[in-house]
């Protein structure tokens, strides 16, 4: 329990880090990309481990997301044509903020950072992707992935 309290405080501080980096979405996405790479860095690129896209997605949704945000995702959908939508109803980077003006101003930063993070993680697994995110209702977040290549 004490561990989670510190984790939540660290999430608040991450907000401050991101706010201090200005409003440039590309810059924040790039920072996220680097973070995502770092998260996966010591994970061996054992492509035999992932049989197909769904395997990679399961890894992202279970191991990756849970390890980083200390909670599971709430939903994963696909159109079976390479697009996946992950949903987290209590996204940790948003739960520290109350709904209202503050969210409107800052949410794009956190989303850009998160998209970059996921894209960076996938990149280090050998997968090129396009990742976007949106907030439907605070603090729920939807992350949409498109794989840019077929897994061998």
């Amino acid at each position, binding site marked *: 329990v004490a561990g989670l309290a*510190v984790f939540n405080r660290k999430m608040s*501080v991450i907000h401050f*880090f991101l706010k201090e980096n200005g409003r440039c979405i590309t810059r924040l996405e790039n920072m996220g990309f680097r973070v995502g790479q770092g998260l996966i860095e010591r994970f061996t690129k054992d492509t035999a481990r992932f049989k197909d896209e769904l395997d990679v997605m399961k890894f992202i949704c279970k191991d990756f997301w849970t390890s980083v945000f200390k909670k599971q995702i709430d939903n994963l959908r696909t159109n079976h044509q390479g697009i996946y939508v992950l949903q987290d109803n209590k996204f940790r980077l948003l739960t520290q903020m109350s709904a209202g003006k503050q969210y409107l101003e800052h949410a794009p930063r956190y989303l850009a950072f998160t998209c970059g993070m996921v894209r960076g993680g996938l990149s280090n697994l050998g997968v090129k992707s396009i990742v976007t995110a949106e907030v439907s209702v605070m603090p729920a977040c939807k992350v949409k992935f498109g794989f840019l290549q077929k897994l061998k």
Partner: protein
Amino acid sequence: LSQQTNTLNSELFTLTYGALVTQLCKDYENDEEVNKQLDKMGYNIGVRLIEDFLARSSVGRCHDFRETADVIAKVAFKMYLGITPSVTNWSPAGDEFSLILESNPLVDFVELPDNHSGLVYSNLLCGVLRGALEMVQMAVDVKFAQDTLRGDNVTEIRMKFIKRIEENLPAGEE
């Protein structure tokens, strides 16, 4: 061994700070400039973080600098970084002390490349402390005296009390 190579580094906080420092190194030409920027960012963060801290901890007003030191080490550092540095090396006048950090979550798995020997990687912390204390009417000077990233045995932050900042009350109020 395969267990190790197959684990995720789940420390988002550490990696985000690393990405921030890396970005600054790209933005600015030399380590001195990056150090300044980290301090400035830290200051901006500190002046807001103090509100979060006061709201979440139940500490009242500190009566002296020694109490301040204890609160910083035992409450603030614990709350935000999960570590409790030790408070030592008090000056005879009681206006200066050291925080000794046995571990520093900001630097997990970090190595300074050779061309950044002047970088004070965790300098953001100095700015945070300075900004936060300014909001509670204390002007302090904070700097790293030792840094494990630069080859020292421990990480030591030195804090010096400069002066009390008088609260500015609007005219006509007591």
